């Protein structure tokens, strides 16, 4: 039987699969939160969801719209202040995995979520900014990045470096003495990129079913390195799709119907 699914669903499911059961996970809103909760409801029931609002071990039944929705604190094992969250938990080195989105990414998995175009002072598009992204990128054990794959996002040169990935590649991250290992995978709607062990340059290692390597290269704003053996992502299972769709439906219902 062949299932119908969107490329966004594939991206979320591919990201969810990267989550090891039992790992403390720093979760942002949107796709990271969907992936984390999908993982928790499928193969990784003991995943510890940490939202930067201070909720540790949250077990939401629907996806929160904001990072501090009431259900997060009601279901958490502990709720701490923001200074404590950032000092003792994130910087304290207690979070195995951080999940980031981005407006732009470069070949060393550095990301931009600050400004697009123009100058910093007078940008074409002013984005929300770093939030907790740069400290997640610095302090989590490893970082996963998810975003849609196209040339506007995958750029040769970032308009602004908001959060450091592997900087100029090679040992440029370890020289900066950051606690975490940095990005270990970039999961897009087309495939999966991983940093080369030595050069740290992002390399295409997987394409999702129905996607060609040429297509990914064409949607990347630099000369994308391609692994010798490019795998094909397992398509979503029936269970993964069903859980994800159920989660999204319940979420939509929960956030509608007010005011």
């Amino acid at each position: 039987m062949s299932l119908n699914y969107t490329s966004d669903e594939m991206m979320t499911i591919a990201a969810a699969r990267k989550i090891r059961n039992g790992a403390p996970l720093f979760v942002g809103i949107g796709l990271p939160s969907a992936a984390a909760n999908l993982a928790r409801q499928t193969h990784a029931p003991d995943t510890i969801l940490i939202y930067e609002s201070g909720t540790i071990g949250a077990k939401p039944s629907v996806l929160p719209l904001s990072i501090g929705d009431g259900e997060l604190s009601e279901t958490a094992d502990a709720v701490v202040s923001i200074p404590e969250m950032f000092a003792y938990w994130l910087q304290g080195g207690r979070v195995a995995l951080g999940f980031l989105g981005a407006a732009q990414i470069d070949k060393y998995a550095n990301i931009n979520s600050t400004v697009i175009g123009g100058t910093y002072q007078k940008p074409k598009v002013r984005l929300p900014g770093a939030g907790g992204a740069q400290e997640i990128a610095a302090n989590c054990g490893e970082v996963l990045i998810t975003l849609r794959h196209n040339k506007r996002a995958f750029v040769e040169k970032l308009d602004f470096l908001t959060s450091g990935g592997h900087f100029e590649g090679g040992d440029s991250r370890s020289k900066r003495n950051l606690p975490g290992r940095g990005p270990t995978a970039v999961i897009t709607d087309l495939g999966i990129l991983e940093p080369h062990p030595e050069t740290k340059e992002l390399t295409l290692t997987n394409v999702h079913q129905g996607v060609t390597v040429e297509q990914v290269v064409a949607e990347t704003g630099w000369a994308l390195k391609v692994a010798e053996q490019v795998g094909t992502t397992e398509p979503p299972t029936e269970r993964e799709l069903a859980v994800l769709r159920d989660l999204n439906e319940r979420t939509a219902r929960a956030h509608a119907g007010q005011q």
Partner: protein
Amino acid sequence: MIGFPSWQNRGLAHITTLSQAIRESVHDGDVVALEGFTHLIPYAAGHEIVRQGKKDLTVIRMTPDVIYDMLIGSGCVKKIVFSWGGNPGVGSLHRLRDAVEKDWPKPIEVEEHAHAGMAAMYAAGAANLPFGVLRGYIGTDLTKYNNRIKFIDCPFTGEKLAAVPAHRPDVTVIHAQKADRKGNVQMWGVVGVQKEAVLAAKRSIVTVEEIVDDLQAPPNAVVLPYWVVGHVCEVKGGAFPSYAQGYYARNNAFYKRWDDISKDRETFTAWMEKHIKNTKDFAEFKRVLEGK
């Protein structure tokens, strides 16, 4: 400068109307922090600042959201100090963007940090330290445009760490669940950086859902004693469209609606006129909003 010993400056908490609190404690040109991390955001107080037409404010907040969009679009703000400026789960703050990108209604100065830095700045202020230390900012472009982010060397290990100056707002405004008649304030749930923001400030205003005889706070509850709090004002529902745990839920639909209200200058201005400037207080705002 070693900060101010706050016991010299404060009297007892003062239970007043919100209108009086803003009039007495927020002045044109002040550095103002309206804190709240998705939960307990002091919307009613923000409306009142717009209503009273305060000017040239430097506004601080980790997560400026819709209320800062209102303040900026209404021309109250000279400078914003922040780490994430968006409409959570929805998208951009259109009034913030319009001010930064197109100087409307006036140019706005931007001092930009990341969350851990902002949290450290408030904590340093609360602790009467001139600066906070953190592992952060290394290798990011934020340091190129913000000269209030510096680096220092650990005197023991030689490691390079980021240093940020303390926040010391003229006035901090927060919303909490409860106060007692003396002015002791209690909050729970996502408590954010509000305690630090109040303790770092010269003055403070706390709006609460209700004023009760006895807080009946559980052990180690987050309680601000009356003698570190300035004005306390009962404003039921005063965090709408944010939420107050134990009282009402976040109105996610309004946050989505704000996208349409704020996208365009005229729609925004008309909405603010009708709902904020032409209403006398938060209760009337709610009535008008609900079409009553």
